[in-house]
Protein backbone atom coordinates (compact mmCIF):
# COMPACT_ATOMS: atom_id res chain seq x y z
CA UNK A 1 0.00 0.00 0.00
CA UNK A 2 1.39 3.38 -0.91
CA UNK A 3 1.44 6.45 1.27
CA UNK A 4 -1.17 8.08 -0.87
CA UNK A 5 -3.69 5.28 -0.49
CA UNK A 6 -3.17 5.26 3.27
CA UNK A 7 -4.09 8.91 3.53
CA UNK A 8 -7.39 8.37 1.73
CA UNK A 9 -10.32 8.38 4.12
CA UNK A 10 -13.93 7.41 3.44
CA UNK A 11 -14.79 10.91 2.31
CA UNK A 12 -12.16 10.96 -0.41
CA UNK A 13 -11.44 9.15 -3.65
CA UNK A 14 -8.31 8.63 -5.73
CA UNK A 15 -8.24 10.20 -9.18
CA UNK A 16 -5.62 9.22 -11.73
CA UNK A 17 -4.51 12.05 -13.97
CA UNK A 18 -2.55 10.66 -16.87
CA UNK A 19 -0.18 8.86 -17.79
CA UNK A 20 -1.16 10.53 -21.03
CA UNK A 21 -3.37 13.48 -20.21
CA UNK A 22 -3.53 16.53 -22.50
CA UNK A 23 -2.65 18.78 -19.57
CA UNK A 24 0.52 16.97 -18.55
CA UNK A 25 2.41 17.46 -21.85
CA UNK A 26 4.15 14.13 -21.72
CA UNK A 27 3.91 10.77 -20.06
CA UNK A 28 3.32 11.85 -16.49
CA UNK A 29 0.77 10.41 -14.13
CA UNK A 30 -0.48 12.17 -11.04
CA UNK A 31 -2.32 10.29 -8.33
CA UNK A 32 -4.72 12.70 -6.70
CA UNK A 33 -6.67 12.13 -3.50
CA UNK A 34 -9.77 14.24 -4.00
CA UNK A 35 -12.29 15.53 -1.53
CA UNK A 36 -15.03 16.47 -3.96
CA UNK A 37 -13.42 18.94 -6.30
CA UNK A 38 -10.58 19.78 -3.93
CA UNK A 39 -7.17 18.09 -3.87
CA UNK A 40 -6.16 16.56 -0.55
CA UNK A 41 -2.95 14.93 -1.71
CA UNK A 42 -1.07 14.84 -5.02
CA UNK A 43 1.67 12.40 -5.92
CA UNK A 44 3.37 12.57 -9.33
CA UNK A 45 4.39 9.16 -10.68
CA UNK A 46 7.41 9.22 -12.98
CA UNK A 47 9.53 6.95 -15.07
CA UNK A 48 7.26 5.93 -17.93
CA UNK A 49 9.82 6.88 -20.56
CA UNK A 50 12.96 6.47 -18.53
CA UNK A 51 15.96 5.80 -20.82
CA UNK A 52 18.87 5.76 -18.35
CA UNK A 53 20.96 8.41 -20.07
CA UNK A 54 23.33 8.39 -17.09
CA UNK A 55 24.25 4.75 -17.67
CA UNK A 56 24.66 5.45 -21.38
CA UNK A 57 27.10 8.17 -20.41
CA UNK A 58 29.22 5.61 -18.59
CA UNK A 59 29.25 3.24 -21.55
CA UNK A 60 30.29 5.69 -24.24
CA UNK A 61 33.25 7.92 -24.78
CA UNK A 62 32.94 11.59 -23.89
CA UNK A 63 32.35 12.47 -27.55
CA UNK A 64 29.83 9.70 -28.22
CA UNK A 65 27.54 10.98 -25.47
CA UNK A 66 27.11 14.40 -27.11
CA UNK A 67 24.03 13.56 -29.24
CA UNK A 68 22.28 12.19 -26.13
CA UNK A 69 22.14 15.63 -24.56
CA UNK A 70 19.72 16.94 -27.19
CA UNK A 71 17.31 14.08 -26.52
CA UNK A 72 16.45 15.04 -22.97
CA UNK A 73 14.88 18.49 -23.20
CA UNK A 74 13.52 18.47 -26.72
CA UNK A 75 12.30 22.07 -26.38
CA UNK A 76 15.59 23.66 -25.36
CA UNK A 77 18.05 21.08 -26.63
CA UNK A 78 20.83 23.57 -27.36
CA UNK A 79 21.12 24.51 -23.69
CA UNK A 80 21.73 20.85 -22.92
CA UNK A 81 24.29 20.67 -25.72
CA UNK A 82 25.89 23.79 -24.35
CA UNK A 83 26.21 22.51 -20.82
CA UNK A 84 27.81 19.28 -21.91
CA UNK A 85 30.37 20.86 -24.24
CA UNK A 86 31.18 23.48 -21.57
CA UNK A 87 31.70 20.72 -19.02
CA UNK A 88 34.05 18.80 -21.27
CA UNK A 89 35.88 21.98 -22.27
CA UNK A 90 36.31 22.81 -18.57
CA UNK A 91 37.56 19.31 -17.77
CA UNK A 92 39.88 18.92 -20.75
CA UNK A 93 40.99 22.57 -20.88
CA UNK A 94 39.84 23.44 -24.40
CA UNK A 95 39.67 27.08 -25.52
CA UNK A 96 36.74 28.19 -27.68
CA UNK A 97 37.10 30.90 -30.38
CA UNK A 98 35.08 34.09 -29.88
CA UNK A 99 32.90 33.70 -32.94
CA UNK A 100 31.80 30.25 -31.81
CA UNK A 101 30.80 31.64 -28.41
CA UNK A 102 28.69 34.32 -30.08
CA UNK A 103 27.02 31.76 -32.33
CA UNK A 104 26.29 29.62 -29.29
CA UNK A 105 24.65 32.53 -27.50
CA UNK A 106 22.53 33.53 -30.51
CA UNK A 107 21.28 30.01 -31.25
CA UNK A 108 20.76 29.28 -27.57
CA UNK A 109 18.61 32.35 -27.01
CA UNK A 110 16.60 31.65 -30.16
CA UNK A 111 15.99 28.18 -28.79
CA UNK A 112 14.95 29.65 -25.42
CA UNK A 113 12.37 31.87 -27.14
CA UNK A 114 11.03 28.92 -29.13
CA UNK A 115 10.69 26.93 -25.90
CA UNK A 116 8.87 29.78 -24.16
CA UNK A 117 6.59 30.25 -27.17
CA UNK A 118 5.58 26.61 -27.06
CA UNK A 119 5.02 26.84 -23.32
CA UNK A 120 2.92 29.97 -23.81
CA UNK A 121 0.66 28.31 -26.35
CA UNK A 122 0.33 25.06 -24.44
CA UNK A 123 -0.26 26.82 -21.13
CA UNK A 124 -3.12 28.88 -22.49
CA UNK A 125 -4.42 25.71 -24.11
CA UNK A 126 -4.51 24.07 -20.65
CA UNK A 127 -6.71 26.95 -19.53
CA UNK A 128 -9.07 26.44 -22.43
CA UNK A 129 -7.87 28.98 -24.99
CA UNK A 130 -6.97 27.52 -28.35
CA UNK A 131 -6.08 30.44 -30.67
CA UNK A 132 -2.92 31.64 -28.84
CA UNK A 133 -1.35 28.23 -29.48
CA UNK A 134 -1.68 28.73 -33.23
CA UNK A 135 -0.24 32.25 -33.05
CA UNK A 136 2.68 31.02 -30.94
CA UNK A 137 3.38 28.14 -33.31
CA UNK A 138 3.47 30.55 -36.21
CA UNK A 139 6.27 32.51 -34.52
CA UNK A 140 8.04 29.42 -33.26
CA UNK A 141 8.13 28.04 -36.79
CA UNK A 142 10.31 30.99 -37.86
CA UNK A 143 12.90 29.99 -35.26
CA UNK A 144 12.79 26.32 -36.17
CA UNK A 145 13.46 27.27 -39.80
CA UNK A 146 16.41 29.43 -38.80
CA UNK A 147 17.89 26.76 -36.54
CA UNK A 148 17.24 24.01 -39.06
CA UNK A 149 19.30 25.94 -41.61
CA UNK A 150 22.38 25.96 -39.37
CA UNK A 151 22.02 22.77 -37.33
CA UNK A 152 20.31 20.43 -39.77
CA UNK A 153 17.57 19.32 -37.40
CA UNK A 154 14.37 20.83 -36.08
CA UNK A 155 14.20 19.79 -32.43
CA UNK A 156 16.90 17.48 -31.07
CA UNK A 157 19.84 19.59 -32.06
CA UNK A 158 23.43 18.45 -31.82
CA UNK A 159 25.24 21.50 -33.10
CA UNK A 160 27.96 22.41 -30.61
CA UNK A 161 31.29 20.61 -30.55
CA UNK A 162 34.10 20.51 -28.02
CA UNK A 163 35.99 23.67 -28.92
CA UNK A 164 33.38 25.37 -31.09
CA UNK A 165 30.37 24.70 -33.27
CA UNK A 166 29.81 22.28 -36.12
CA UNK A 167 29.68 24.84 -38.91
CA UNK A 168 29.74 28.60 -39.35
CA UNK A 169 26.56 30.63 -39.76
CA UNK A 170 26.01 32.64 -42.91
CA UNK A 171 24.75 36.16 -43.40
CA UNK A 172 21.24 34.83 -44.14
CA UNK A 173 21.03 33.40 -40.65
CA UNK A 174 22.16 36.64 -39.01
CA UNK A 175 19.74 38.68 -41.11
CA UNK A 176 17.01 36.18 -40.42
CA UNK A 177 17.62 36.41 -36.66
CA UNK A 178 17.38 40.19 -36.86
CA UNK A 179 14.18 39.98 -38.88
CA UNK A 180 12.72 37.50 -36.43
CA UNK A 181 13.44 39.76 -33.46
CA UNK A 182 11.76 42.66 -35.27
CA UNK A 183 8.77 40.47 -36.02
CA UNK A 184 8.34 39.13 -32.47
CA UNK A 185 8.76 42.65 -31.04
CA UNK A 186 5.76 43.67 -33.09
CA UNK A 187 3.76 40.64 -32.03
CA UNK A 188 4.43 40.81 -28.27
CA UNK A 189 1.90 43.63 -27.64
CA UNK A 190 -0.65 41.50 -29.46
CA UNK A 191 0.05 38.57 -27.12
CA UNK A 192 -0.29 40.83 -24.12
CA UNK A 193 -3.54 42.33 -25.40
CA UNK A 194 -4.94 38.96 -26.37
CA UNK A 195 -3.87 36.90 -23.38
CA UNK A 196 -2.11 38.71 -20.52
CA UNK A 197 -4.81 41.34 -20.14
CA UNK A 198 -7.57 38.80 -20.49
CA UNK A 199 -9.73 38.87 -17.36
CA UNK A 200 -10.33 35.11 -17.47
CA UNK A 201 -6.61 34.41 -17.52
CA UNK A 202 -6.04 36.79 -14.62
CA UNK A 203 -8.75 35.14 -12.55
CA UNK A 204 -7.30 31.72 -13.24
CA UNK A 205 -3.72 32.65 -12.35
CA UNK A 206 -3.63 35.46 -9.81
CA UNK A 207 -3.11 34.40 -6.17
CA UNK A 208 -3.35 30.74 -7.14
CA UNK A 209 -0.57 28.16 -7.12
CA UNK A 210 1.51 29.47 -4.25
CA UNK A 211 5.25 28.67 -4.36
CA UNK A 212 7.31 31.07 -2.23
CA UNK A 213 11.04 31.62 -1.84
CA UNK A 214 11.49 29.39 1.20
CA UNK A 215 9.69 26.55 -0.56
CA UNK A 216 11.92 27.01 -3.62
CA UNK A 217 14.98 26.74 -1.41
CA UNK A 218 13.83 23.56 0.30
CA UNK A 219 12.89 21.95 -3.01
CA UNK A 220 15.79 23.29 -5.06
CA UNK A 221 13.48 25.01 -7.55
CA UNK A 222 15.21 27.20 -10.13
CA UNK A 223 14.41 29.09 -13.31
CA UNK A 224 11.12 30.95 -13.79
CA UNK A 225 9.62 29.10 -10.81
CA UNK A 226 12.21 30.65 -8.46
CA UNK A 227 12.14 34.01 -10.26
CA UNK A 228 8.36 34.09 -9.90
CA UNK A 229 8.91 33.73 -6.15
CA UNK A 230 11.06 36.84 -5.94
CA UNK A 231 14.45 35.08 -6.13
CA UNK A 232 16.92 36.86 -8.37
CA UNK A 233 18.62 33.71 -9.58
CA UNK A 234 19.74 33.09 -13.15
CA UNK A 235 22.78 30.96 -13.92
CA UNK A 236 23.74 33.33 -16.75
CA UNK A 237 24.39 36.02 -14.11
CA UNK A 238 25.04 33.90 -11.06
CA UNK A 239 27.70 31.60 -12.47
CA UNK A 240 28.55 33.27 -15.80
CA UNK A 241 29.53 31.08 -18.72
CA UNK A 242 30.24 31.61 -22.43
CA UNK A 243 30.13 35.33 -23.41
CA UNK A 244 26.93 36.22 -21.52
CA UNK A 245 28.67 38.77 -19.26
CA UNK A 246 29.31 40.93 -22.35
CA UNK A 247 25.65 41.54 -23.03
CA UNK A 248 23.30 43.91 -21.36
CA UNK A 249 20.11 42.18 -20.23
CA UNK A 250 17.84 42.09 -17.20
CA UNK A 251 16.68 39.16 -15.10
CA UNK A 252 12.89 39.45 -14.79
CA UNK A 253 11.86 38.82 -11.18
CA UNK A 254 8.29 38.87 -9.88
CA UNK A 255 7.39 38.38 -6.25
CA UNK A 256 3.79 37.22 -6.67
CA UNK A 257 4.71 33.57 -5.96
CA UNK A 258 1.57 32.61 -7.96
CA UNK A 259 1.00 31.19 -11.43
CA UNK A 260 0.68 34.72 -12.83
CA UNK A 261 4.17 35.64 -11.61
CA UNK A 262 5.67 32.64 -13.36
CA UNK A 263 3.73 33.53 -16.49
CA UNK A 264 5.03 37.10 -16.43
CA UNK A 265 8.64 35.97 -15.88
CA UNK A 266 8.59 33.89 -19.05
CA UNK A 267 6.89 36.59 -21.12
CA UNK A 268 9.54 39.11 -20.01
CA UNK A 269 12.34 36.62 -20.61
CA UNK A 270 11.45 36.47 -24.28
CA UNK A 271 12.03 40.23 -24.47
CA UNK A 272 15.39 39.87 -22.73
CA UNK A 273 16.45 37.04 -25.03
CA UNK A 274 15.62 39.27 -27.99
CA UNK A 275 17.89 41.97 -26.52
CA UNK A 276 20.74 39.46 -26.20
CA UNK A 277 20.27 38.22 -29.77
CA UNK A 278 20.27 41.78 -31.13
CA UNK A 279 23.49 42.64 -29.31
CA UNK A 280 25.21 39.40 -30.27
CA UNK A 281 24.23 39.64 -33.95
CA UNK A 282 25.36 43.26 -33.99
CA UNK A 283 28.81 42.56 -32.53
CA UNK A 284 29.67 39.05 -33.76
CA UNK A 285 33.40 38.94 -34.57
CA UNK A 286 34.97 37.32 -37.63
CA UNK A 287 37.23 34.33 -37.20
CA UNK A 288 37.27 30.57 -36.86
CA UNK A 289 34.39 28.67 -35.25
CA UNK A 290 36.47 25.74 -34.08
CA UNK A 291 39.47 25.62 -31.76
CA UNK A 292 42.69 24.99 -33.66
CA UNK A 293 43.99 22.61 -31.02
CA UNK A 294 40.94 20.59 -30.04
CA UNK A 295 42.14 17.12 -29.01
CA UNK A 296 40.85 14.14 -31.01
CA UNK A 297 40.34 11.93 -27.97
CA UNK A 298 39.02 13.51 -24.80
CA UNK A 299 40.73 12.28 -21.64
CA UNK A 300 40.08 14.72 -18.80
CA UNK A 301 42.33 14.45 -15.73
CA UNK A 302 40.97 12.44 -12.79
CA UNK A 303 38.43 14.17 -10.61
CA UNK A 304 34.94 15.63 -10.32
CA UNK A 305 33.66 18.39 -12.57
CA UNK A 306 30.44 20.36 -12.43
CA UNK A 307 28.96 22.76 -14.92
CA UNK A 308 25.57 24.45 -14.94
CA UNK A 309 23.65 26.50 -17.51
CA UNK A 310 20.31 28.29 -17.49
CA UNK A 311 17.80 26.44 -19.64
CA UNK A 312 14.27 27.66 -20.31
CA UNK A 313 13.19 25.75 -17.22
CA UNK A 314 16.00 26.54 -14.81
CA UNK A 315 19.44 25.45 -13.76
CA UNK A 316 20.67 22.31 -15.53
CA UNK A 317 23.85 20.91 -14.05
CA UNK A 318 26.09 18.02 -15.00
CA UNK A 319 28.41 16.41 -12.49
CA UNK A 320 30.95 14.18 -14.16
CA UNK A 321 33.49 11.97 -12.46
CA UNK A 322 36.49 11.26 -14.65
CA UNK A 323 38.88 8.40 -14.02
CA UNK A 324 41.32 9.63 -16.62
CA UNK A 325 40.18 7.31 -19.41
CA UNK A 326 38.21 8.27 -22.53
CA UNK A 327 34.91 7.22 -20.89
CA UNK A 328 33.26 9.08 -18.00
CA UNK A 329 33.23 7.07 -14.77
CA UNK A 330 29.98 8.67 -13.63
CA UNK A 331 27.67 11.19 -15.22
CA UNK A 332 24.95 12.80 -13.13
CA UNK A 333 22.37 14.97 -14.85
CA UNK A 334 20.66 17.45 -12.58
CA UNK A 335 17.60 18.57 -14.52
CA UNK A 336 15.53 21.62 -13.57
CA UNK A 337 12.03 20.20 -14.14
CA UNK A 338 12.73 17.35 -11.73
CA UNK A 339 13.31 19.76 -8.84
CA UNK A 340 10.51 22.06 -9.97
CA UNK A 341 8.00 19.23 -10.13
CA UNK A 342 8.71 18.11 -6.54
CA UNK A 343 7.05 21.32 -5.38
CA UNK A 344 3.78 20.26 -7.03
CA UNK A 345 2.86 17.79 -4.29
CA UNK A 346 2.89 20.51 -1.65
CA UNK A 347 1.67 23.43 -3.77
CA UNK A 348 -1.37 21.56 -5.11
CA UNK A 349 -2.79 20.70 -1.68
CA UNK A 350 -6.21 22.25 -1.12
CA UNK A 351 -6.58 23.42 -4.71
CA UNK A 352 -9.39 22.91 -7.14
CA UNK A 353 -8.52 20.41 -9.85
CA UNK A 354 -8.54 22.93 -12.75
CA UNK A 355 -6.33 25.28 -10.77
CA UNK A 356 -3.87 22.45 -10.14
CA UNK A 357 -3.68 21.92 -13.89
CA UNK A 358 -2.94 25.64 -14.31
CA UNK A 359 -0.25 25.31 -11.64
CA UNK A 360 1.27 22.36 -13.46
CA UNK A 361 1.27 24.32 -16.71
CA UNK A 362 2.97 27.23 -14.96
CA UNK A 363 5.84 24.93 -13.99
CA UNK A 364 6.57 24.32 -17.71
CA UNK A 365 7.45 20.65 -17.41
CA UNK A 366 9.24 18.63 -20.05
CA UNK A 367 8.82 15.02 -19.02
CA UNK A 368 11.73 13.38 -20.92
CA UNK A 369 13.99 15.73 -19.04
CA UNK A 370 12.60 14.55 -15.68
CA UNK A 371 12.78 10.89 -16.63
CA UNK A 372 16.03 11.12 -18.58
Amino acid at each position, binding site marked *: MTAIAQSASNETFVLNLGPQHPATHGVLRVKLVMDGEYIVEAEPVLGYIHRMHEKMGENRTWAQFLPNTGRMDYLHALAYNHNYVCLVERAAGIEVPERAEYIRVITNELNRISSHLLWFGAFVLDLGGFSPLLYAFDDREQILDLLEAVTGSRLTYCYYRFGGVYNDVDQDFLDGSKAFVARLRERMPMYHNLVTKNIILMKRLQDIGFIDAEMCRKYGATGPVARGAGIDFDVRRHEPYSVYPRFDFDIPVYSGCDSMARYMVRMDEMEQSMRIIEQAVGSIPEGPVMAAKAPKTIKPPKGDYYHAVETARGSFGI*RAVSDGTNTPYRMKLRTPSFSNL*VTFGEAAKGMLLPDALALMGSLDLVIPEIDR
Partner: protein
Amino acid sequence: MDADTLKQRLAALPSAAVQELDHARRGFSLDVSLPPAQLVAAVRILDEAGYFIETITGVDWLGENAAKIKEAQAAAAAKKAAAAKKAAEARKAAEEAGEPLPEEAAAEEPEAEAAPPEPAVDDMEAIYDFNRYDRCHRVTLRTRTPRDKPSVPSIANIYQAAHWHERETHDFFGIVFEGHGYLVPLLLPEDADYHPLRKDYSA
Protein backbone atom coordinates in the same frame (compact mmCIF):
# COMPACT_ATOMS: atom_id res chain seq x y z
CA MET B 1 26.92 33.19 7.22
CA ASP B 2 29.93 33.96 5.04
CA ALA B 3 32.00 31.34 3.28
CA ASP B 4 34.80 31.29 5.87
CA THR B 5 32.47 30.81 8.83
CA LEU B 6 30.72 28.02 6.96
CA LYS B 7 34.04 26.38 6.17
CA GLN B 8 35.10 26.55 9.82
CA ARG B 9 31.81 25.15 11.06
CA LEU B 10 31.97 22.25 8.60
CA ALA B 11 35.63 21.58 9.39
CA ALA B 12 34.77 21.48 13.10
CA LEU B 13 32.63 18.36 12.59
CA PRO B 14 34.44 15.19 13.77
CA SER B 15 36.35 13.37 10.96
CA ALA B 16 35.30 15.91 8.33
CA ALA B 17 37.82 16.77 5.63
CA VAL B 18 37.22 20.14 3.98
CA GLN B 19 38.91 20.99 0.72
CA GLU B 20 38.72 24.28 -1.14
CA LEU B 21 38.66 23.97 -4.94
CA ASP B 22 39.09 26.32 -7.84
CA HIS B 23 35.59 27.04 -9.09
CA ALA B 24 36.70 28.04 -12.60
CA ARG B 25 38.47 24.72 -13.02
CA ARG B 26 36.15 22.26 -11.27
CA GLY B 27 32.76 23.94 -10.88
CA PHE B 28 32.46 23.84 -7.12
CA SER B 29 34.03 25.78 -4.31
CA LEU B 30 33.98 23.55 -1.26
CA ASP B 31 34.32 19.78 -1.13
CA VAL B 32 33.55 18.17 2.23
CA SER B 33 34.09 14.48 2.98
CA LEU B 34 32.50 13.19 6.13
CA PRO B 35 31.30 9.95 7.71
CA PRO B 36 27.56 9.16 7.42
CA ALA B 37 27.06 9.91 11.13
CA GLN B 38 28.01 13.57 10.58
CA LEU B 39 25.87 14.09 7.48
CA VAL B 40 22.71 15.40 9.16
CA ALA B 41 24.72 17.86 11.26
CA ALA B 42 26.47 19.18 8.14
CA VAL B 43 23.20 19.52 6.23
CA ARG B 44 21.68 21.44 9.16
CA ILE B 45 24.58 23.89 9.02
CA LEU B 46 23.98 24.44 5.29
CA ASP B 47 20.26 24.85 5.91
CA GLU B 48 20.92 27.49 8.58
CA ALA B 49 23.27 29.26 6.19
CA GLY B 50 20.48 29.53 3.61
CA TYR B 51 21.77 27.13 0.96
CA PHE B 52 19.40 25.43 -1.47
CA ILE B 53 19.74 21.83 -2.51
CA GLU B 54 20.75 21.13 -6.09
CA THR B 55 20.87 17.38 -6.21
CA ILE B 56 21.77 14.13 -4.50
CA THR B 57 23.52 11.34 -6.30
CA GLY B 58 25.75 8.34 -5.82
CA VAL B 59 28.97 6.92 -7.17
CA ASP B 60 29.79 3.22 -7.14
CA TRP B 61 33.49 2.69 -6.42
CA LEU B 62 33.58 -1.01 -7.33
CA GLY B 63 37.13 -2.17 -7.87
CA GLU B 64 38.68 0.85 -6.23
CA ASN B 65 40.53 -1.14 -3.60
CA ALA B 66 41.76 -3.73 -6.10
CA ALA B 67 43.05 -0.89 -8.27
CA LYS B 68 44.79 0.69 -5.29
CA ILE B 69 46.51 -2.59 -4.42
CA LYS B 70 47.55 -3.07 -8.03
CA GLU B 71 48.87 0.48 -8.16
CA ALA B 72 50.85 0.00 -4.93
CA GLN B 73 52.31 -3.27 -6.21
CA ALA B 74 53.25 -1.70 -9.52
CA ALA B 75 54.89 1.21 -7.70
CA ALA B 76 56.84 -1.18 -5.45
CA ALA B 77 57.96 -3.26 -8.45
CA ALA B 78 59.04 -0.15 -10.33
CA LYS B 79 61.03 1.06 -7.32
CA LYS B 80 62.74 -2.31 -7.00
CA ALA B 81 63.62 -2.38 -10.71
CA ALA B 82 65.05 1.14 -10.50
CA ALA B 83 67.18 0.23 -7.51
CA ALA B 84 68.50 -2.89 -9.24
CA LYS B 85 69.32 -0.89 -12.37
CA LYS B 86 71.14 1.73 -10.34
CA ALA B 87 73.18 -0.94 -8.57
CA ALA B 88 74.06 -2.62 -11.88
CA GLU B 89 75.18 0.71 -13.34
CA ALA B 90 77.31 1.42 -10.31
CA ARG B 91 78.95 -1.99 -10.64
CA LYS B 92 79.61 -1.48 -14.33
CA ALA B 93 81.13 1.96 -13.74
CA ALA B 94 83.34 0.56 -11.01
CA GLU B 95 84.52 -2.32 -13.28
CA GLU B 96 85.40 0.06 -16.09
CA ALA B 97 87.34 2.30 -13.75
CA GLY B 98 89.16 -0.75 -12.35
CA GLU B 99 88.04 0.12 -8.86
CA PRO B 100 87.16 -2.54 -6.37
CA LEU B 101 83.57 -3.69 -6.69
CA PRO B 102 81.15 -2.03 -4.34
CA GLU B 103 79.98 -4.41 -1.71
CA GLU B 104 77.21 -6.56 -3.02
CA ALA B 105 75.53 -6.70 0.31
CA ALA B 106 75.19 -2.93 0.46
CA ALA B 107 73.78 -2.69 -3.06
CA GLU B 108 71.27 -5.42 -2.65
CA GLU B 109 70.21 -4.65 0.85
CA PRO B 110 66.48 -5.27 0.76
CA GLU B 111 64.61 -2.06 1.44
CA ALA B 112 61.92 -2.10 4.04
CA GLU B 113 59.02 -2.84 1.75
CA ALA B 114 55.77 -1.06 2.39
CA ALA B 115 53.14 -3.64 3.24
CA PRO B 116 50.57 -3.86 0.41
CA PRO B 117 47.16 -2.50 1.39
CA GLU B 118 44.74 -5.06 2.74
CA PRO B 119 41.89 -6.02 0.41
CA ALA B 120 38.83 -4.26 1.79
CA VAL B 121 35.16 -3.83 0.93
CA ASP B 122 34.61 -1.24 -1.78
CA ASP B 123 32.66 1.90 -1.03
CA MET B 124 29.45 3.43 -2.26
CA GLU B 125 29.48 7.19 -2.13
CA ALA B 126 26.53 9.55 -1.67
CA ILE B 127 27.11 13.08 -2.96
CA TYR B 128 25.05 16.13 -2.01
CA ASP B 129 25.27 19.41 -3.94
CA PHE B 130 24.23 22.70 -2.35
CA ASN B 131 24.36 26.23 -3.69
CA ARG B 132 23.16 29.71 -2.85
CA TYR B 133 20.65 31.90 -4.65
CA ASP B 134 22.38 35.21 -3.88
CA ARG B 135 25.94 34.36 -4.92
CA CYS B 136 27.53 31.31 -6.43
CA HIS B 137 29.10 29.05 -3.81
CA ARG B 138 28.65 25.38 -4.57
CA VAL B 139 29.28 23.09 -1.61
CA THR B 140 29.60 19.35 -2.10
CA LEU B 141 29.12 16.93 0.77
CA ARG B 142 30.28 13.40 0.20
CA THR B 143 29.95 10.44 2.47
CA ARG B 144 31.14 6.87 1.98
CA THR B 145 29.42 3.72 3.10
CA PRO B 146 30.39 0.05 2.60
CA ARG B 147 29.21 -1.22 -0.75
CA ASP B 148 27.77 -4.50 0.49
CA LYS B 149 25.43 -2.78 2.96
CA PRO B 150 25.18 0.87 1.93
CA SER B 151 23.28 3.05 4.35
CA VAL B 152 23.25 6.78 5.09
CA PRO B 153 20.78 8.87 7.11
CA SER B 154 17.96 10.59 5.26
CA ILE B 155 17.82 14.38 5.09
CA ALA B 156 14.28 14.50 3.67
CA ASN B 157 12.96 16.15 6.83
CA ILE B 158 15.41 19.06 6.39
CA TYR B 159 15.19 19.52 2.62
CA GLN B 160 11.91 18.23 1.20
CA ALA B 161 13.43 17.86 -2.26
CA ALA B 162 15.58 15.07 -0.84
CA HIS B 163 12.44 12.95 -0.70
CA TRP B 164 12.69 12.40 -4.45
CA HIS B 165 16.45 12.65 -4.85
CA GLU B 166 17.00 9.96 -2.23
CA ARG B 167 14.42 7.71 -3.85
CA GLU B 168 16.17 8.15 -7.18
CA THR B 169 19.57 7.38 -5.64
CA HIS B 170 18.09 4.34 -3.94
CA ASP B 171 16.68 3.18 -7.30
CA PHE B 172 19.97 3.40 -9.10
CA PHE B 173 22.53 2.46 -6.41
CA GLY B 174 20.62 0.62 -3.73
CA ILE B 175 21.79 3.03 -1.05
CA VAL B 176 19.36 2.86 1.87
CA PHE B 177 18.41 6.22 3.35
CA GLU B 178 17.62 5.50 7.00
CA GLY B 179 14.51 7.25 8.17
CA HIS B 180 13.15 8.03 4.72
CA GLY B 181 9.99 5.99 5.17
CA TYR B 182 8.88 5.76 1.52
CA LEU B 183 11.80 4.33 -0.46
CA VAL B 184 9.72 2.89 -3.31
CA PRO B 185 11.13 3.14 -6.85
CA LEU B 186 10.68 6.60 -8.34
CA LEU B 187 11.94 6.28 -11.91
CA LEU B 188 12.20 2.49 -12.21
CA PRO B 189 9.16 0.18 -12.39
CA GLU B 190 7.42 -0.13 -9.04
CA ASP B 191 8.51 -3.75 -8.54
CA ALA B 192 12.17 -3.17 -9.52
CA ASP B 193 14.70 -4.85 -7.23
CA TYR B 194 17.82 -4.14 -9.32
CA HIS B 195 20.12 -1.13 -9.23
CA PRO B 196 21.21 -0.21 -12.76
CA LEU B 197 23.95 2.30 -11.97
CA ARG B 198 25.96 -0.20 -9.96
CA LYS B 199 29.10 -1.04 -11.90
CA ASP B 200 28.43 -4.78 -11.78
CA TYR B 201 24.92 -4.42 -13.24
CA SER B 202 24.43 -5.43 -16.84
CA ALA B 203 21.09 -5.83 -18.55
